[in-house]
């Protein structure tokens, strides 16, 4: 009950208290509201700003990375181009060096070969000297010939004169003109006269003109003779006994002139000897064996048979090729009988293994 009393005492003041509290609350409400708004707005602003800051940071981050990427790519391209240019310059340099060397070499060797030119000019002067010497010799030779001809002519003249004037020779009694007693030795003409035979009256001079020599030069008056005589058989040999052919015939056949084929005759390379060799080779090739054929004698009776190389193996004669031709393995056969043909058979293949008799086959 005390509490109730207490509470009733407070009741009267309660309304005022209540009113007072509400009044103060109401009075503070606006301020508090505004303050709350302010705080909230500021807080919201902070939050938004923080958010924006965050966004900006992120954007910056992205843009930074993107720009970095782009420029790195660009840089890489620039580096590549620069590298490429550097490489090309280098190659060009090297190519220039190579070309420089090559062009120098080429020009010096082929277009203007100084040493070859020098050698050539030296060779020309040497050749010129040779030619000049030869021509000089030729001219001298010609001159000598001319002189010799002149001399010969004069000699002939003199001799002819001497023969004509043979009567001027000195005799025992009378000294001739050319043998004057006041001279120490007789004149050369006197000597000529002594040597020469007197000219007979009827002797006609058949002196052919000098020009005849020149005629002979380009002409062959006598045509060249070819020896077309047949080779004669040797004389005096006794005729051999037996049915032998005539020696002349045999020799004719043996020394028959070569009649080469058109190919040989018209070819540039082969000559007579080669063609003959070819014929000999052919003859040797076509021989079956080297033993001479001897006439009916008992020479061959005791000869052993030489088997051919084809069919002789290590241990005697091989049977393949003689006894059997194709391998046949009966163990591998699937059935005893031959396969039945479904399709029409080919006649030729049917004959396999059946054309010969079965004797001699391996069982």
């Amino acid at each position: 009950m005390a509490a109730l009393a207490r509470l009733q005492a407070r009741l009267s003041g309660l309304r005022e208290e209540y009113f007072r509290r509400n009044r103060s609350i109401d009075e503070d409400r606006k301020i508090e509201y505004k303050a709350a708004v302010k705080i909230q707005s500021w807080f919201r602003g902070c939050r938004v700003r923080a958010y924006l800051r965050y966004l900006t940071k992120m954007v910056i981050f992205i843009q930074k990375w993107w720009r970095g990427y782009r420029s790195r790519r660009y840089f890489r391209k620039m580096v590549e181009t620069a590298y490429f240019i550097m490489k090309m310059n280098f190659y060009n340099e090297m190519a220039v060096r190579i070309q420089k060397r090559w062009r120098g070499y080429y020009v010096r060797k082929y277009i203007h070969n100084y040493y070859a030119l020098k050698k050539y000019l030296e060779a020309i002067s040497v050749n010129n000297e040779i030619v000049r010497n030869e021509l000089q010799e030729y001219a001298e030779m010609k001159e000598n010939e001319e002189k010799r001809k002149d001399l010969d002519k004069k000699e002939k003249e003199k001799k002819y004169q001497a023969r004509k004037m043979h009567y001027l020779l000195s005799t025992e009694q009378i000294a001739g003109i050319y043998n004057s007693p006041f001279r120490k030795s007789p004149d050369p003409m006197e000597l000529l006269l002594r040597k020469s035979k007197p000219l007979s009256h009827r002797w006609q001079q058949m002196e052919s003109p000098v020009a005849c020599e020149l005629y002979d030069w380009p002409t062959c008056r006598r045509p060249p003779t070819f020896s077309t005589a047949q080779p004669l058989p040797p004389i005096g040999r006794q005729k051999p006994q037996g049915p032998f052919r005539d020696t002349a015939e045999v020799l004719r056949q043996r020394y028959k002139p070569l009649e080469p084929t058109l190919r040989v005759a018209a070819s540039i390379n082969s000559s007579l000897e080669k063609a003959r060799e070819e014929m000999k080779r052919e003859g040797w090739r076509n021989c079956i064996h080297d033993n001479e054929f001897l006439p009916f004698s008992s020479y061959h009776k005791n000869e052993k048979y030489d088997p051919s190389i084809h069919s002789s193996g290590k241990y005697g004669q091989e049977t393949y090729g003689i006894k059997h031709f194709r391998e046949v393995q009966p163990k591998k056969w699937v059935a005893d009988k031959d396969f039945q043909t479904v399709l029409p058979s080919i006649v030729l293949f049917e004959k396999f293994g059946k054309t010969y008799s079965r004797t001699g086959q391996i069982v």
Partner: protein
Amino acid sequence: SGVMSLLRPLLLDVVPTIQQTAALALGRLANYNDDLAEAVVKGDILPQLVCSLSEQNRFYKKAAAFVLRAVGKHSPQLAQAIVQCGALEMLVICLEDFDPGVKEAACWAIGYIARHNSELSQAVVDAGAVPLLVLCIQEPEIALKRIAASTLSDISKHSPELAQTVVDAGAIAHLAQMILNPDAKLKRQVLSALSQIAKHSVDLAELVVEAEIFPVVLTCLKDSDEYVKKNGATLIREIAKHTPELSQLIVNAGGVAAVIDCIGSCRGTVRLPGIMVLGYVAAHSENLSMAVIVSKGIPPLCACLIEEHEDHIKAAAAWALGQVGRHTPEHARAVAVANVLPTLLAMYMDTRSSEDLQMKATLKNILQKCTYLPALEPLLHDAPPNIVKHIVGQFSKVLPHDSKARRLFVTTGGLKKVQEIKAESGSLLQEYINTINNCYPEEIVR
């Protein structure tokens, strides 16, 4: 006088001797004079001669061919008249005769007809004379060979087609063999025939060369007969002028040495083809002109220039020197060392109209390449303005680089001379003078 009308009936006389003598008389008359030959033609004697040629004996044929030759040699119109009477066929028939005298007379007549111009030669070729002529060349008689060779030469000299016809008949091989013959007159004709063939084109020249005439032709250059040497040099000239390869062939065979010796040993017009050989060989390339220089070609050319009196020989020698010297400074130096430039200049200044062009071209060619200053200096003093231009140009090229030459130039008074030259400003000469003046310090120039 009425000799023609008197002789004409005698030609138809019964006695053969009279006919022959009448023909011989006609021939001698026609041979002597142009008008008499015309009178023979006008007197209608030729058709009679031609008709009776086929039946008669060889003396008549010889005499008749002599008449035809005598008439035909004077002028083309007379030769044309002969061709129109149909004499060519008769002459060709004569060429097939057995007697060499008849063949010789017929060849001679044909040769004189063909000599005048190319239509007549063509008529001769159309009559089928060329193969017979080639056969005649192979005959043993020297006189016949001579005449046949000279006829072939006359036929082939007019045009390339005629020369080709002669070549197709196989003439070159026989002509080439006959170069070795000792007879001088024959060699003359053979060489002239070959040179007429070779002069037309490169192919013909190559055909001639393939007949292996080198080095045999060089022996002809040493022959004692002047005309053989001349014709030999002509042949080499016709071959050398076509291509560098042919000239190279000649040089390799030692032809240049032989030609130079030949020039040295002859005098007068005989030298001319030899000089031209050197000119042509040197003109083709600088290696060949160096070969000419090395074979000591320049002294004979200078000697020709100085000694000869004929204008055309001097012009040819000057031209040849120009060809030798125009390639490089080395060549020009070789020419200049031979002291020939003053001679050339003197000849240039000597007032002679036709030579001027040659000399001027030669001088210009040599001077433009000449760097041998001691030879250029004397020219500086005497030369006329258009030559001085070149000389000063050469000095201006060499002096900036060579100090010794500069000193020499001043001491010999060349610089003074250069100052005295008056040139319009802006012209090439002024530029050259400026270049030279720039090489020296100012005081010396003043």
